[in-house]
Structure formats: structure tokens, C-alpha cells
């Protein structure tokens, strides 16, 4: 009986100390919390994103699937349709029974225009409405940071147009970059092989 009581006290004290730590780590006092992600993981990025289904998620919500990511904007007439076609080509080469292990993610570089509604319409119009397609709207800041992680350069050159580099990036289930292909009209073969190796 006494034994149990001491146990109880210890447990209570333990929880008090945990909550004390949490309360103190507010504001900008950054205590180093081990997120469980490796140092290279994109899941270390903070900030929230809106999906085409109007859900609000952190990038870490994408954990657990192999990610194929690209940055585009929906009003783009020149390179993006080709980039999107490349994404669809990669998708079409995947074994259909493995698609649930994959997430094809299209991040908008024009967060002011591309809201969830617009992204959803784009997904439907381009036949990319299956659950393994994700479209993300961030903020100007989060998009800038994310583009830097992917080494994607972009610049708004008119109210409706952006210049941007054309890079498709593959991340493993832990959010670590494992492959990038750059350019339009390039052969997707190496990217496809990399992804298939990851999921099998």
C-alpha cells in the first residue's frame, strides 16, 4: 500500500515537471526539442499549409509516404503544364497497388492566387484528384523557405507570371531528399527508378 502511494507521488511529480518545462518553453526561448526527424528532414520546417481539400496541415503530416514534389502555379501557361505532365508520367509508371505508399505533392509558388478552391479545380481539370495527389497553398514566407529547401528559384515577373526553375524532388518517408531532376523534357527514367526502389 505504502509502495503504491510512493509510486503515485513519483508519477505526479513527473507530470508536474513535464508541464513545467512546456510552460517555460513558450515565446522565443527555443529549447532544443528532439522532433524525432533527422537533421536533413523537411519535416523540421514549421508552418501550416492548406490542401486542395481545405485541410490545414504541417509538412510533417506528409510523413510515412514517399514524396514526389514540384513547385508550380495554376495560372502558368508555359512550363508548368509540362512539369505537371511529367508528374503524371511518373505517376503512370508506378505499380497501382503501391500508389497508397506515395504522395505526389504540388506546391504553389503563387499562394495569393492559388487558394484551396483553385487548387481543387486544377486537380480535377488535370485528372489529379486521386488521394495520392496533394496540392499545397502556403504563405509568401513559407513558400520562399520551401523553395530554398528544394533549391528552386522563382521570381514574380508580372502580376500573373513567375519565372521558376523546373525541379522535381523525391523525398523518402522520413522527409529526406533522395533525388532531384531538373529541366523540362528530360527523361523521367532515373526518377522513376529511384521511387520504385523506395517503395518496394
Amino acid at each position: 500500500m505504502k509502495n503504491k502511494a510512493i509510486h503515485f507521488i513519483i508519477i505526479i511529480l513527473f507530470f508536474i515537471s513535464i508541464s513545467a518545462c512546456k510552460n517555460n518553453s513558450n515565446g522565443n526561448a527555443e529549447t532544443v526539442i528532439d522532433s524525432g526527424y533527422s537533421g536533413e528532414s523537411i519535416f523540421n520546417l514549421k508552418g501550416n499549409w492548406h490542401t486542395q481539400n481545405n485541410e490545414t496541415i504541417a509538412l510533417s503530416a506528409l510523413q510515412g509516404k514517399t514524396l514526389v514534389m514540384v513547385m508550380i502555379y495554376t495560372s502558368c501557361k508555359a512550363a508548368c503544364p509540362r512539369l505537371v505532365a511529367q508528374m503524371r508520367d511518373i505517376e503512370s509508371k508506378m505499380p497501382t497497388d503501391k500508389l497508397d505508399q506515395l504522395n505526389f505533392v504540388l506546391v504553389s509558388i503563387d499562394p495569393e492566387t492559388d487558394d484551396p478552391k483553385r487548387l481543387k479545380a486544377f486537380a480535377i481539370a488535370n485528372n489529379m484528384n486521386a488521394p495520392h495527389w496533394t496540392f499545397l497553398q502556403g504563405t509568401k514566407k513559407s513558400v520562399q523557405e520551401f523553395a530554398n529547401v528544394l533549391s528552386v528559384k522563382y521570381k514574380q515577373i508580372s502580376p500573373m507570371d513567375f519565372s521558376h526553375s523546373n525541379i522535381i524532388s523525391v523525398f523518402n518517408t522520413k522527409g529526406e531528399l533522395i533525388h532531384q531532376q531538373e529541366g523540362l523534357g528530360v527523361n523521367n527514367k532515373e526518377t522513376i527508378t529511384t521511387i520504385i526502389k523506395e517503395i518496394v
Partner: protein
Amino acid sequence: MLLSILKKLLPLYCLTFIVISCNNSNTSNNASKLVNNADTLFGVKAAMANIKSGKYIPLYGRDSQLVTINSFQMDILPVTNANYLAFVKTNKRWRKSNIKKLFAESNYLNHWKNDTTIGNEMNANSAITNVSWYAAKAYCECQGKRMSTVNEWEFVAMANENIADARKTAKYNQQILAWYEKPNTSNNPVGNSLKNYWGVFDIHGLVWEWTSDFSSIFLIDESKNDSSTNKKLFCGSGKFTKTDLMNYAAYMRYAFRESLKANYSLQNLGFRCVKDSMINNEK
């Protein structure tokens, strides 16, 4: 048996509990002071200069277009080693040993002895270098500031001591190019240069500086040609031509920016912070 072990452990546990909670509350008190007082740079006062709004044609941008700069404030000095030390003392995730690889390559704070000691031969009052874009961003945001845009930085950088736009004066370009030829200027103390028109020091002469949108710099010509020989291809109607061929120094800065990646930590690359001006942004 178990009971006696627990009895022995209990006081020990309580003791550690008290010690830990004391430590935590100390750091949080310090931090909340910093947050409340955004103009204080971790105990070091960072003076800022008012940059009045204006228009100019930068070297690169939308083709030959005037860029409007809203008035803002800029740190008159680059962030120093001492300043950055204060930052990492409070913000442990930016310490050399804690930095995530995503946010900085292995050169990060390469020249520091350890997490909280700068190198022996280093000057506490010289500009911090070997820091990534992410680190510079966090440092500035921590104090309610931000990094300048390329356009803002270049706007300030075209001033000499007397006029806001000295780009046409021969001496201005010569001085900058003379610095570009001088090796190892990064360890010189900040604040020894001539004050420029805006009251800003060392914009040229010591280290290069990070900008928020460095990754928006494309030096490739107007071509959107997508032959396989051209590695980088762009969407939209980007057209980038030099509007000022004479300004070779600026060309070098743009080329340098274009070559950067956000996790780079280079010995000649530091930063300073800016913030939006409270003064109304008309003309």
C-alpha cells in the same frame, strides 16, 4: 526491497526536479525580455538608419522597370560575432552542435571554437559569417525584424557618403571593386568605414550580405529555349537584361547571389536586419 529503492530515489528526484525547473524559468525570463524589447539586440543595442522611400532601376529585375522602395529601417552595422553569440546563447537550436543539416551545411560557424566561444583569432566586433540564410532569417525574426530584399539592399548600396545614387560616379565603382580585390576583409571590425548617405556603415568593404529573396535572381538571358543544352528553363516571360552595363560591381553581387543555396555558410557572407518603417510610406 523496491520500497527502499524508491525511498532513496525520491529525494534525489525532487532535487533534480527543482534544479531543472529553476533553470528553465531563468531562460524563459530572459527570453521574454528580449521579445518585449524588439529593438534590443540580445543586450546589444542595434542602431538602425531610416531609409526614405524612393524609386530606381536595379541592375536586374523586371526589364528596365522602376522599382519602388517603401521607406524602411536598416541596421547601421552588419551583425557581429558578439551579437550572434548572444543569439545562440538564448536560441539553442542555432548552436553549432545543434544545427539541423537542413538549415545549414557543415561549414556553419566553422571558425568558432565551440557552441558559445568564437575562434581565438577572431574579433568579437567583426561581422558574423559562416551562417546560412535560415540562420540569418531566424536571427532577424527573433527581434521582430527581417532580412532586406535584394531590391532594398541594392537601393541602400548605391549610395556613397554624399548622395543616394552614386552609381554614375567613377570613384564609387572603383572603391567597391578595390574591395572585391582585397582578400580576407571579413575579420576587420565593423563600423570603421565611411558612413554612407543613409547613415549605414560597411555595406561595401567587409562581407557580402544575405538577402531574403536571393533565390529570385536569374542571370540567364531572356531565352526560354528548352533545348537540352540549356540546363535551367523557366516558365513565364522572364526577360533579364543588364540595364546598367557600367555597374560591374553590382553584376558581381547578383552573380554571387545567384550561385548561393540557402544552407550555404561562407566565410565572406554575413547579414544585417531591416524592418518596415513606422513613417508612412507615401513619397
